[in-house]
Protein backbone atom coordinates (compact mmCIF):
# COMPACT_ATOMS: atom_id res chain seq x y z
CA UNK A 1 0.00 0.00 0.00
CA UNK A 2 2.82 2.36 0.81
CA UNK A 3 4.62 4.50 -1.74
CA UNK A 4 8.04 3.87 -3.20
CA UNK A 5 10.74 5.10 -0.89
CA UNK A 6 14.06 6.71 -1.55
CA UNK A 7 16.43 4.74 0.58
CA UNK A 8 19.63 6.54 -0.29
CA UNK A 9 20.21 10.00 1.14
CA UNK A 10 21.62 11.30 -2.14
CA UNK A 11 18.26 10.75 -3.83
CA UNK A 12 16.54 13.05 -1.34
CA UNK A 13 18.56 16.15 -2.07
CA UNK A 14 16.98 16.98 -5.45
CA UNK A 15 13.52 16.35 -3.97
CA UNK A 16 14.20 18.83 -1.17
CA UNK A 17 15.46 21.34 -3.72
CA UNK A 18 12.20 21.08 -5.67
CA UNK A 19 10.14 21.41 -2.52
CA UNK A 20 12.08 24.57 -1.59
CA UNK A 21 11.43 25.97 -5.04
CA UNK A 22 7.70 25.35 -4.55
CA UNK A 23 7.84 27.06 -1.16
CA UNK A 24 9.52 30.13 -2.64
CA UNK A 25 7.20 30.36 -5.63
CA UNK A 26 3.99 29.79 -3.68
CA UNK A 27 4.80 32.26 -0.90
CA UNK A 28 5.95 34.91 -3.38
CA UNK A 29 2.76 34.42 -5.36
CA UNK A 30 0.65 34.66 -2.21
CA UNK A 31 2.41 37.81 -1.09
CA UNK A 32 2.47 36.62 2.50
CA UNK A 33 3.57 33.53 4.43
CA UNK A 34 6.35 32.16 6.60
CA UNK A 35 9.42 31.68 4.45
CA UNK A 36 12.13 31.02 7.04
CA UNK A 37 10.74 27.96 8.81
CA UNK A 38 9.29 26.51 5.62
CA UNK A 39 12.72 26.43 4.03
CA UNK A 40 14.43 25.37 7.27
CA UNK A 41 12.36 22.20 7.69
CA UNK A 42 12.37 21.18 4.03
CA UNK A 43 14.99 18.49 4.50
CA UNK A 44 13.16 16.93 7.44
CA UNK A 45 9.86 16.91 5.51
CA UNK A 46 11.56 15.41 2.47
CA UNK A 47 13.05 12.64 4.60
CA UNK A 48 9.69 11.94 6.26
CA UNK A 49 7.54 11.89 3.11
CA UNK A 50 10.04 10.27 0.75
CA UNK A 51 11.82 7.81 2.98
CA UNK A 52 10.46 7.35 6.49
CA UNK A 53 6.66 7.47 6.53
CA UNK A 54 4.31 4.77 5.27
CA UNK A 55 1.76 6.63 3.20
CA UNK A 56 0.19 6.69 -0.23
CA UNK A 57 -0.84 9.84 -2.04
CA UNK A 58 -3.33 7.83 -4.09
CA UNK A 59 -5.06 6.65 -0.89
CA UNK A 60 -4.92 9.57 1.52
CA UNK A 61 -7.40 7.92 3.90
CA UNK A 62 -5.61 4.56 4.03
CA UNK A 63 -6.26 3.60 7.70
CA UNK A 64 -2.78 2.22 8.33
CA UNK A 65 -0.88 5.25 7.06
CA UNK A 66 1.57 7.02 9.31
CA UNK A 67 0.27 10.39 10.50
CA UNK A 68 2.17 13.66 10.14
CA UNK A 69 0.95 16.13 12.74
CA UNK A 70 2.12 19.63 11.94
CA UNK A 71 1.78 21.59 15.15
CA UNK A 72 3.40 24.73 13.75
CA UNK A 73 0.76 25.52 11.18
CA UNK A 74 2.68 28.54 9.96
CA UNK A 75 5.02 26.34 7.93
CA UNK A 76 1.97 25.23 5.93
CA UNK A 77 3.66 26.25 2.65
CA UNK A 78 6.25 23.53 3.26
CA UNK A 79 3.60 20.92 4.09
CA UNK A 80 1.65 21.83 0.94
CA UNK A 81 4.78 21.77 -1.24
CA UNK A 82 5.73 18.37 0.18
CA UNK A 83 2.22 16.94 -0.29
CA UNK A 84 2.17 18.20 -3.88
CA UNK A 85 5.64 16.78 -4.52
CA UNK A 86 4.35 13.45 -3.15
CA UNK A 87 1.44 13.53 -5.60
CA UNK A 88 -1.47 14.32 -3.27
CA UNK A 89 -2.59 17.12 -5.58
CA UNK A 90 -1.21 18.93 -8.63
CA UNK A 91 1.72 21.26 -7.99
CA UNK A 92 0.03 24.07 -9.86
CA UNK A 93 -2.50 24.29 -7.02
CA UNK A 94 0.34 25.61 -4.83
CA UNK A 95 -0.16 28.92 -6.59
CA UNK A 96 -3.54 29.28 -4.86
CA UNK A 97 -1.89 29.51 -1.42
CA UNK A 98 -3.73 31.91 0.90
CA UNK A 99 -6.24 32.87 -1.81
CA UNK A 100 -9.98 33.07 -1.24
CA UNK A 101 -11.55 29.66 -1.81
CA UNK A 102 -8.22 27.83 -1.84
CA UNK A 103 -7.70 24.45 -0.23
CA UNK A 104 -4.32 25.85 0.82
CA UNK A 105 -5.23 28.01 3.80
CA UNK A 106 -2.69 30.30 5.42
CA UNK A 107 -2.63 27.87 8.32
CA UNK A 108 -3.87 24.34 7.57
CA UNK A 109 -7.67 23.90 7.59
CA UNK A 110 -9.08 20.45 6.92
CA UNK A 111 -12.51 21.88 6.20
CA UNK A 112 -11.25 22.89 2.78
CA UNK A 113 -10.69 19.24 1.86
CA UNK A 114 -7.00 19.13 0.97
CA UNK A 115 -5.90 15.50 0.47
CA UNK A 116 -3.13 14.36 2.81
CA UNK A 117 -3.77 17.07 5.39
CA UNK A 118 -4.18 15.37 8.78
CA UNK A 119 -4.90 18.33 11.03
CA UNK A 120 -6.19 21.87 11.12
CA UNK A 121 -3.70 23.69 13.32
CA UNK A 122 -2.00 26.98 13.81
CA UNK A 123 -2.56 28.03 17.39
CA UNK A 124 0.72 26.90 18.90
CA UNK A 125 0.91 24.18 21.52
CA UNK A 126 -1.93 22.03 20.20
CA UNK A 127 -0.26 19.48 17.96
CA UNK A 128 1.46 17.30 20.52
CA UNK A 129 -1.82 16.69 22.35
CA UNK A 130 -3.49 15.66 19.10
CA UNK A 131 -0.50 13.44 18.29
CA UNK A 132 -0.86 11.82 21.72
CA UNK A 133 -4.55 11.17 21.03
CA UNK A 134 -3.67 9.56 17.70
CA UNK A 135 -0.88 7.46 19.18
CA UNK A 136 -3.13 6.22 22.00
CA UNK A 137 -5.76 5.37 19.36
CA UNK A 138 -3.31 3.30 17.28
CA UNK A 139 -2.25 1.36 20.35
CA UNK A 140 -5.83 1.01 21.53
CA UNK A 141 -6.83 -0.52 18.21
CA UNK A 142 -3.63 -2.59 18.09
CA UNK A 143 -2.62 -0.96 14.81
CA UNK A 144 0.96 -0.48 13.69
CA UNK A 145 0.91 3.02 12.24
CA UNK A 146 3.03 5.74 13.80
CA UNK A 147 2.64 9.40 14.56
CA UNK A 148 5.28 11.93 13.57
CA UNK A 149 4.74 15.37 15.04
CA UNK A 150 6.58 18.55 14.13
CA UNK A 151 7.14 21.39 16.58
CA UNK A 152 8.90 24.72 16.68
CA UNK A 153 11.41 25.61 19.36
CA UNK A 154 9.55 28.80 20.22
CA UNK A 155 6.37 26.75 20.40
CA UNK A 156 7.77 24.90 23.40
CA UNK A 157 7.11 28.04 25.41
CA UNK A 158 3.42 27.04 25.38
CA UNK A 159 2.57 25.20 28.59
CA UNK A 160 0.16 22.80 26.91
CA UNK A 161 3.14 21.20 25.09
CA UNK A 162 4.43 19.98 28.44
CA UNK A 163 1.03 18.68 29.52
CA UNK A 164 1.09 16.62 26.34
CA UNK A 165 4.71 15.56 26.87
CA UNK A 166 3.84 14.27 30.34
CA UNK A 167 0.88 12.29 29.03
CA UNK A 168 2.85 10.71 26.15
CA UNK A 169 5.37 9.28 28.60
CA UNK A 170 2.66 8.23 31.05
CA UNK A 171 0.96 6.21 28.33
CA UNK A 172 4.29 4.84 27.02
CA UNK A 173 3.67 6.02 23.48
CA UNK A 174 6.61 4.47 21.63
CA UNK A 175 4.65 4.89 18.39
CA UNK A 176 5.09 8.66 18.63
CA UNK A 177 8.18 10.50 17.41
CA UNK A 178 8.17 14.27 17.89
CA UNK A 179 10.63 16.59 16.20
CA UNK A 180 11.65 20.02 17.41
CA UNK A 181 12.80 22.46 14.77
CA UNK A 182 15.70 23.94 16.74
CA UNK A 183 16.54 26.99 14.68
CA UNK A 184 16.97 29.19 17.76
CA UNK A 185 14.80 31.99 16.45
CA UNK A 186 11.23 33.18 16.75
CA UNK A 187 9.39 36.29 15.58
CA UNK A 188 10.82 38.67 18.18
CA UNK A 189 14.38 37.38 17.91
CA UNK A 190 16.49 34.63 19.48
CA UNK A 191 14.62 32.10 21.61
CA UNK A 192 17.34 32.62 24.24
CA UNK A 193 16.29 36.25 24.53
CA UNK A 194 12.52 35.96 24.11
CA UNK A 195 12.13 33.05 26.54
CA UNK A 196 14.97 30.68 27.13
CA UNK A 197 13.89 27.06 26.59
CA UNK A 198 17.20 25.45 27.57
CA UNK A 199 18.25 23.00 28.85
CA UNK A 200 16.05 21.47 26.19
CA UNK A 201 17.27 17.87 25.98
CA UNK A 202 17.21 17.62 29.77
CA UNK A 203 13.62 18.94 29.86
CA UNK A 204 12.34 16.24 27.51
CA UNK A 205 14.37 13.61 29.32
CA UNK A 206 12.92 14.71 32.65
CA UNK A 207 9.44 14.37 31.13
CA UNK A 208 10.17 10.71 30.34
CA UNK A 209 11.15 10.94 26.68
CA UNK A 210 14.06 9.38 24.83
CA UNK A 211 15.93 12.33 23.33
CA UNK A 212 17.91 12.39 20.10
CA UNK A 213 19.67 15.23 18.36
CA UNK A 214 20.52 15.52 14.70
CA UNK A 215 21.63 17.88 11.97
CA UNK A 216 18.35 18.77 10.32
CA UNK A 217 20.03 19.31 6.97
CA UNK A 218 22.08 16.09 6.81
CA UNK A 219 19.88 13.40 5.27
CA UNK A 220 22.02 10.55 6.53
CA UNK A 221 21.80 11.92 10.05
CA UNK A 222 18.04 12.56 9.78
CA UNK A 223 17.34 9.03 8.52
CA UNK A 224 19.50 7.19 11.04
CA UNK A 225 18.16 9.30 13.90
CA UNK A 226 14.56 8.57 12.91
CA UNK A 227 15.47 4.87 12.64
CA UNK A 228 16.78 4.93 16.19
CA UNK A 229 13.79 6.89 17.48
CA UNK A 230 11.31 4.51 15.86
CA UNK A 231 13.09 1.54 17.47
CA UNK A 232 12.67 2.92 21.01
CA UNK A 233 10.32 0.85 23.16
CA UNK A 234 8.02 1.88 26.02
CA UNK A 235 8.54 5.61 25.75
CA UNK A 236 8.02 8.39 23.23
CA UNK A 237 10.98 9.87 21.37
CA UNK A 238 11.85 13.39 20.46
CA UNK A 239 14.40 14.51 17.90
CA UNK A 240 15.90 17.93 18.43
CA UNK A 241 16.88 18.83 14.88
CA UNK A 242 19.38 21.64 14.49
CA UNK A 243 18.24 23.65 11.49
CA UNK A 244 18.85 26.99 9.87
CA UNK A 245 15.84 29.15 9.22
CA UNK A 246 15.78 30.01 5.51
CA UNK A 247 18.12 27.12 4.66
CA UNK A 248 19.03 26.95 0.99
CA UNK A 249 18.99 30.68 0.34
CA UNK A 250 22.27 31.90 1.81
CA UNK A 251 21.33 35.55 2.05
CA UNK A 252 18.37 34.95 4.35
CA UNK A 253 19.67 32.03 6.43
CA UNK A 254 19.38 32.46 10.20
CA UNK A 255 17.84 35.92 9.87
CA UNK A 256 14.90 35.98 12.30
CA UNK A 257 13.25 38.73 10.28
CA UNK A 258 12.48 36.03 7.70
CA UNK A 259 10.31 34.08 10.12
CA UNK A 260 7.10 35.55 8.83
CA UNK A 261 8.29 37.51 5.83
CA UNK A 262 7.24 36.54 2.31
CA UNK A 263 9.56 36.31 -0.67
CA UNK A 264 9.07 39.33 -2.90
CA UNK A 265 8.17 38.54 -6.51
CA UNK A 266 11.39 40.07 -7.82
CA UNK A 267 13.43 37.89 -5.46
CA UNK A 268 12.06 34.57 -6.71
CA UNK A 269 14.57 33.81 -9.47
CA UNK A 270 17.51 34.95 -7.35
CA UNK A 271 16.41 32.72 -4.46
CA UNK A 272 15.83 29.72 -6.70
CA UNK A 273 19.17 30.30 -8.30
CA UNK A 274 20.66 30.27 -4.81
CA UNK A 275 19.14 26.81 -4.22
CA UNK A 276 21.08 25.47 -7.19
CA UNK A 277 24.33 26.91 -5.98
CA UNK A 278 24.05 25.68 -2.43
CA UNK A 279 27.23 24.17 -1.13
Amino acid at each position, binding site marked *: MTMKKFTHPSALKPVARNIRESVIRSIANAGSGHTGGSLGLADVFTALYFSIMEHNSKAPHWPDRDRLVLSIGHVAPLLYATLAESGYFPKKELMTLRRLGSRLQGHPGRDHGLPGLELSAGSLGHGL*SVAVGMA*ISAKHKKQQWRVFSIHGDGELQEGSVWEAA*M*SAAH*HKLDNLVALVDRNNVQIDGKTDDVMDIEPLAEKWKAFGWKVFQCDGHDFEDILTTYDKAIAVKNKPSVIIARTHMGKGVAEIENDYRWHGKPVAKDQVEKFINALDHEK
Partner: protein
Amino acid sequence: MLLIMKNNKRFLNEADKPTRLGFGEGLREAGGVNESVIALGADITGSVNVNLFKKAFPNRFYSLGIAEQNAAGVSAGMALSGLIPVFTTYAVFSAMRTTDQLRISICYNNVHAVIGGAHAGISVGPDGATHQALEDIAVTRALPNMTVFSPCDADQTHLAILAAINKMNGPVYIRFGREKVPNFTGMDYPFHPGKGQLMKEGNDLTIIATGHMVWHALQAAYQMEEKNINARVINIHTIKPIDNEIIIRAAKETGKIVTAEEHQIYGGLGSAITEILSEHYPVPVKIIGMPDSFGESGKPEELMDKYGLTSHNIIKQSLKLLK
Protein backbone atom coordinates in the same frame (compact mmCIF):
# COMPACT_ATOMS: atom_id res chain seq x y z
CA MET B 1 -44.13 16.27 44.53
CA LEU B 2 -45.72 18.20 41.72
CA LEU B 3 -47.88 16.97 38.91
CA ILE B 4 -48.35 18.79 35.66
CA MET B 5 -50.77 17.30 33.17
CA LYS B 6 -50.96 18.35 29.54
CA ASN B 7 -51.35 16.55 26.26
CA ASN B 8 -51.50 13.28 28.17
CA LYS B 9 -47.90 13.91 29.24
CA ARG B 10 -47.41 13.83 32.94
CA PHE B 11 -44.32 15.31 34.49
CA LEU B 12 -43.90 13.66 37.83
CA ASN B 13 -40.87 13.85 40.02
CA GLU B 14 -40.68 10.47 41.69
CA ALA B 15 -37.31 11.14 43.27
CA ASP B 16 -34.60 13.79 43.00
CA LYS B 17 -31.51 12.69 41.12
CA PRO B 18 -28.32 14.52 40.15
CA THR B 19 -27.98 15.18 36.44
CA ARG B 20 -24.34 14.08 36.68
CA LEU B 21 -25.59 10.60 37.58
CA GLY B 22 -27.81 10.58 34.49
CA PHE B 23 -24.71 11.49 32.50
CA GLY B 24 -22.61 8.73 34.08
CA GLU B 25 -25.28 6.09 33.54
CA GLY B 26 -25.91 7.22 29.98
CA LEU B 27 -22.20 7.15 29.20
CA ARG B 28 -21.92 3.64 30.58
CA GLU B 29 -24.90 2.56 28.49
CA ALA B 30 -23.36 4.06 25.35
CA GLY B 31 -20.11 2.29 26.12
CA GLY B 32 -21.94 -1.02 26.34
CA VAL B 33 -23.25 -0.81 22.80
CA ASN B 34 -20.37 0.95 21.05
CA GLU B 35 -16.80 -0.20 21.52
CA SER B 36 -15.43 2.98 19.96
CA VAL B 37 -16.55 5.03 22.93
CA ILE B 38 -13.58 6.11 25.05
CA ALA B 39 -13.72 8.09 28.29
CA LEU B 40 -10.98 10.51 29.23
CA GLY B 41 -10.44 11.47 32.84
CA ALA B 42 -8.96 14.60 34.35
CA ASP B 43 -8.64 13.39 37.94
CA ILE B 44 -12.15 14.04 39.25
CA THR B 45 -13.76 11.05 37.56
CA GLY B 46 -15.72 10.00 40.65
CA SER B 47 -17.16 13.43 41.11
CA VAL B 48 -18.36 13.66 37.51
CA ASN B 49 -19.58 10.03 37.52
CA VAL B 50 -17.26 8.89 34.74
CA ASN B 51 -16.13 6.23 37.20
CA LEU B 52 -19.22 4.20 36.23
CA PHE B 53 -17.83 3.86 32.69
CA LYS B 54 -14.30 3.34 34.02
CA LYS B 55 -15.44 0.47 36.20
CA ALA B 56 -17.43 -1.16 33.41
CA PHE B 57 -14.81 -0.68 30.68
CA PRO B 58 -11.41 -0.19 32.31
CA ASN B 59 -9.61 -0.71 28.99
CA ARG B 60 -11.50 2.15 27.40
CA PHE B 61 -10.70 4.71 30.04
CA TYR B 62 -7.59 6.87 29.76
CA SER B 63 -6.38 9.00 32.61
CA LEU B 64 -4.83 12.31 31.59
CA GLY B 65 -4.43 14.02 34.93
CA ILE B 66 -5.16 17.62 35.79
CA ALA B 67 -4.28 18.87 32.32
CA GLU B 68 -7.47 19.83 30.53
CA GLN B 69 -5.95 21.58 27.53
CA ASN B 70 -4.10 18.39 26.72
CA ALA B 71 -7.20 16.27 27.28
CA ALA B 72 -9.12 18.37 24.76
CA GLY B 73 -6.34 17.97 22.20
CA VAL B 74 -6.08 14.24 22.90
CA SER B 75 -9.84 14.03 22.28
CA ALA B 76 -9.31 15.60 18.87
CA GLY B 77 -6.53 13.14 18.03
CA MET B 78 -8.68 10.18 19.05
CA ALA B 79 -11.68 11.42 17.11
CA LEU B 80 -9.47 11.91 14.04
CA SER B 81 -8.45 8.27 14.47
CA GLY B 82 -11.97 6.86 14.47
CA LEU B 83 -12.71 6.64 18.19
CA ILE B 84 -15.47 8.55 19.99
CA PRO B 85 -13.82 10.29 22.94
CA VAL B 86 -15.86 11.68 25.81
CA PHE B 87 -13.85 14.10 27.90
CA THR B 88 -15.56 15.18 31.09
CA THR B 89 -14.59 17.40 33.94
CA TYR B 90 -16.03 20.44 35.68
CA ALA B 91 -17.49 22.80 33.11
CA VAL B 92 -15.26 25.65 34.28
CA PHE B 93 -12.33 23.56 33.03
CA SER B 94 -13.72 21.52 30.15
CA ALA B 95 -15.33 24.51 28.43
CA MET B 96 -13.14 27.41 29.49
CA ARG B 97 -9.65 26.23 30.48
CA THR B 98 -9.64 24.53 27.07
CA THR B 99 -11.36 27.09 24.89
CA ASP B 100 -8.52 27.44 22.37
CA GLN B 101 -8.26 23.66 22.01
CA LEU B 102 -12.04 23.40 21.64
CA ARG B 103 -11.94 26.08 18.98
CA ILE B 104 -9.09 24.82 16.83
CA SER B 105 -8.29 21.18 17.61
CA ILE B 106 -11.91 20.09 18.02
CA CYS B 107 -14.26 22.53 16.28
CA TYR B 108 -12.09 23.65 13.36
CA ASN B 109 -11.22 20.02 12.70
CA ASN B 110 -14.96 19.35 13.14
CA VAL B 111 -14.41 16.02 14.87
CA HIS B 112 -16.89 13.90 16.77
CA ALA B 113 -15.62 14.55 20.26
CA VAL B 114 -17.95 14.90 23.23
CA ILE B 115 -17.12 17.36 25.98
CA GLY B 116 -18.89 16.93 29.29
CA GLY B 117 -19.34 20.08 31.37
CA ALA B 118 -20.10 18.91 34.89
CA HIS B 119 -20.97 20.96 37.97
CA ALA B 120 -22.33 23.73 35.77
CA GLY B 121 -24.27 26.62 37.22
CA ILE B 122 -24.37 28.30 40.59
CA SER B 123 -25.99 25.28 42.26
CA VAL B 124 -22.48 23.85 42.74
CA GLY B 125 -22.84 25.82 45.95
CA PRO B 126 -20.20 25.94 48.68
CA ASP B 127 -17.18 25.62 46.37
CA GLY B 128 -17.79 29.23 45.40
CA ALA B 129 -17.28 31.35 42.31
CA THR B 130 -14.13 29.65 40.96
CA HIS B 131 -15.99 26.39 40.39
CA GLN B 132 -19.38 27.74 39.29
CA ALA B 133 -19.52 27.63 35.48
CA LEU B 134 -21.72 30.53 34.43
CA GLU B 135 -20.13 31.43 31.11
CA ASP B 136 -19.75 28.03 29.45
CA ILE B 137 -22.86 28.32 27.26
CA ALA B 138 -21.65 31.67 25.94
CA VAL B 139 -18.23 30.26 25.12
CA THR B 140 -19.31 26.99 23.54
CA ARG B 141 -22.22 28.30 21.53
CA ALA B 142 -19.95 30.89 19.92
CA LEU B 143 -17.78 28.15 18.42
CA PRO B 144 -18.59 27.11 14.84
CA ASN B 145 -19.54 23.42 14.41
CA MET B 146 -20.23 22.97 18.13
CA THR B 147 -23.52 21.49 19.29
CA VAL B 148 -24.53 22.54 22.81
CA PHE B 149 -26.84 20.41 24.96
CA SER B 150 -28.22 21.63 28.27
CA PRO B 151 -30.63 18.91 29.43
CA CYS B 152 -33.18 19.59 32.15
CA ASP B 153 -32.92 16.58 34.46
CA ALA B 154 -31.09 13.31 35.04
CA ASP B 155 -33.10 11.22 32.58
CA GLN B 156 -32.75 13.82 29.86
CA THR B 157 -29.00 14.05 30.52
CA HIS B 158 -28.88 10.27 30.11
CA LEU B 159 -30.63 10.59 26.74
CA ALA B 160 -28.50 13.58 25.76
CA ILE B 161 -25.19 11.78 26.17
CA LEU B 162 -26.60 8.83 24.20
CA ALA B 163 -27.65 11.23 21.45
CA ALA B 164 -24.28 12.99 21.52
CA ILE B 165 -22.57 9.67 20.91
CA ASN B 166 -25.05 7.92 18.63
CA LYS B 167 -26.79 10.67 16.66
CA MET B 168 -24.16 13.36 16.19
CA ASN B 169 -21.09 13.50 13.93
CA GLY B 170 -19.37 16.67 15.10
CA PRO B 171 -18.29 18.23 18.39
CA VAL B 172 -20.83 18.25 21.22
CA TYR B 173 -20.74 20.04 24.56
CA ILE B 174 -23.08 18.72 27.26
CA ARG B 175 -23.73 20.81 30.33
CA PHE B 176 -25.09 19.34 33.55
CA GLY B 177 -25.09 19.93 37.28
CA ARG B 178 -23.95 18.50 40.57
CA GLU B 179 -26.98 18.61 42.84
CA LYS B 180 -29.88 16.27 43.23
CA VAL B 181 -32.76 17.90 41.37
CA PRO B 182 -36.24 16.76 40.36
CA ASN B 183 -36.10 14.05 37.73
CA PHE B 184 -39.39 14.47 35.96
CA THR B 185 -39.22 13.89 32.21
CA GLY B 186 -38.73 10.13 32.24
CA MET B 187 -36.65 7.92 29.97
CA ASP B 188 -39.59 7.58 27.58
CA TYR B 189 -39.70 11.32 26.83
CA PRO B 190 -37.94 11.59 23.49
CA PHE B 191 -34.80 13.68 23.09
CA HIS B 192 -34.46 15.13 19.62
CA PRO B 193 -31.27 17.18 19.20
CA GLY B 194 -32.06 20.69 18.00
CA LYS B 195 -35.74 20.53 18.94
CA GLY B 196 -37.29 22.59 21.69
CA GLN B 197 -39.84 20.84 23.88
CA LEU B 198 -43.28 22.23 24.60
CA MET B 199 -43.63 21.22 28.24
CA LYS B 200 -46.86 23.05 28.93
CA GLU B 201 -49.40 24.81 26.73
CA GLY B 202 -50.40 28.39 27.45
CA ASN B 203 -51.10 31.61 25.59
CA ASP B 204 -50.58 34.47 28.05
CA LEU B 205 -46.80 34.40 27.96
CA THR B 206 -44.01 31.88 27.42
CA ILE B 207 -41.32 30.83 29.85
CA ILE B 208 -38.33 29.45 27.98
CA ALA B 209 -35.84 27.68 30.19
CA THR B 210 -32.86 25.38 30.04
CA GLY B 211 -31.28 22.92 32.45
CA HIS B 212 -32.68 22.64 35.94
CA MET B 213 -34.52 25.95 35.49
CA VAL B 214 -37.10 24.09 33.38
CA TRP B 215 -38.43 22.55 36.59
CA HIS B 216 -38.71 25.96 38.20
CA ALA B 217 -40.43 27.25 35.06
CA LEU B 218 -43.02 24.48 35.23
CA GLN B 219 -43.66 25.16 38.90
CA ALA B 220 -44.04 28.85 38.18
CA ALA B 221 -46.47 28.18 35.34
CA TYR B 222 -48.50 25.80 37.47
CA GLN B 223 -48.74 28.31 40.29
CA MET B 224 -49.73 31.09 37.90
CA GLU B 225 -52.67 28.99 36.70
CA GLU B 226 -54.24 29.64 40.09
CA LYS B 227 -54.21 33.32 39.14
CA ASN B 228 -55.79 32.48 35.78
CA ILE B 229 -52.58 33.11 33.91
CA ASN B 230 -51.76 30.46 31.36
CA ALA B 231 -48.04 30.39 30.78
CA ARG B 232 -46.50 28.26 28.06
CA VAL B 233 -43.30 26.46 29.06
CA ILE B 234 -40.61 25.50 26.58
CA ASN B 235 -37.52 23.46 27.37
CA ILE B 236 -34.53 24.37 25.22
CA HIS B 237 -32.25 21.39 25.82
CA THR B 238 -30.28 22.14 22.68
CA ILE B 239 -28.87 25.64 22.89
CA LYS B 240 -27.19 25.18 19.54
CA PRO B 241 -28.44 24.60 16.94
CA ILE B 242 -31.44 26.26 18.55
CA ASP B 243 -35.05 25.61 17.57
CA ASN B 244 -35.95 28.95 15.97
CA GLU B 245 -39.42 27.82 15.01
CA ILE B 246 -40.75 26.97 18.47
CA ILE B 247 -39.38 30.26 19.81
CA ILE B 248 -40.81 32.46 17.06
CA ARG B 249 -44.15 30.67 17.33
CA ALA B 250 -44.20 31.33 21.09
CA ALA B 251 -43.51 35.02 20.47
CA LYS B 252 -46.29 35.24 17.88
CA GLU B 253 -48.83 33.34 19.95
CA THR B 254 -48.08 34.62 23.45
CA GLY B 255 -46.41 37.99 22.81
CA LYS B 256 -44.23 37.99 25.91
CA ILE B 257 -41.26 35.88 26.91
CA VAL B 258 -39.39 35.16 30.11
CA THR B 259 -36.16 33.17 29.87
CA ALA B 260 -34.45 31.36 32.73
CA GLU B 261 -31.02 29.76 33.02
CA GLU B 262 -28.27 29.05 35.51
CA HIS B 263 -25.83 31.16 33.49
CA GLN B 264 -24.82 34.75 32.97
CA ILE B 265 -27.49 36.90 31.35
CA TYR B 266 -24.93 37.74 28.66
CA GLY B 267 -24.25 35.11 26.05
CA GLY B 268 -26.50 32.31 27.22
CA LEU B 269 -30.03 31.12 26.49
CA GLY B 270 -31.58 34.56 26.98
CA SER B 271 -29.14 36.06 24.52
CA ALA B 272 -29.83 33.30 22.01
CA ILE B 273 -33.59 33.89 22.29
CA THR B 274 -33.31 37.64 21.91
CA GLU B 275 -30.99 37.26 18.93
CA ILE B 276 -33.69 35.26 17.18
CA LEU B 277 -36.64 37.41 18.21
CA SER B 278 -35.04 40.76 17.47
CA GLU B 279 -34.50 39.57 13.94
CA HIS B 280 -37.75 37.69 13.32
CA TYR B 281 -40.47 38.81 15.71
CA PRO B 282 -39.55 41.31 18.42
CA VAL B 283 -41.58 41.02 21.64
CA PRO B 284 -40.79 42.04 25.23
CA VAL B 285 -38.33 39.60 26.83
CA LYS B 286 -37.12 39.32 30.42
CA ILE B 287 -33.89 37.39 30.87
CA ILE B 288 -33.46 35.67 34.24
CA GLY B 289 -29.90 34.58 34.99
CA MET B 290 -26.74 35.67 36.76
CA PRO B 291 -26.62 39.48 36.60
CA ASP B 292 -23.10 39.82 35.15
CA SER B 293 -21.51 38.83 38.42
CA PHE B 294 -19.49 36.01 39.92
CA GLY B 295 -21.20 33.60 42.27
CA GLU B 296 -20.16 32.90 45.85
CA SER B 297 -20.24 30.21 48.50
CA GLY B 298 -23.52 29.11 50.02
CA LYS B 299 -25.99 26.27 49.97
CA PRO B 300 -27.32 25.65 46.47
CA GLU B 301 -30.87 26.67 47.38
CA GLU B 302 -29.60 29.81 49.16
CA LEU B 303 -27.69 30.84 46.06
CA MET B 304 -30.53 30.05 43.68
CA ASP B 305 -32.76 32.17 45.87
CA LYS B 306 -30.31 35.08 46.21
CA TYR B 307 -29.80 35.34 42.46
CA GLY B 308 -33.44 34.91 41.55
CA LEU B 309 -33.13 31.48 39.98
CA THR B 310 -36.43 30.32 41.44
CA SER B 311 -40.02 29.76 40.44
CA HIS B 312 -40.90 32.63 42.75
CA ASN B 313 -38.79 35.07 40.73
CA ILE B 314 -40.05 33.66 37.43
CA ILE B 315 -43.60 34.42 38.62
CA LYS B 316 -42.58 37.89 39.77
CA GLN B 317 -40.92 38.73 36.46
CA SER B 318 -43.81 37.23 34.50
CA LEU B 319 -46.36 39.34 36.34
CA LYS B 320 -44.26 42.45 35.73
CA LEU B 321 -44.14 41.66 32.05
CA LEU B 322 -47.90 41.09 31.94
CA LYS B 323 -48.75 44.42 33.57
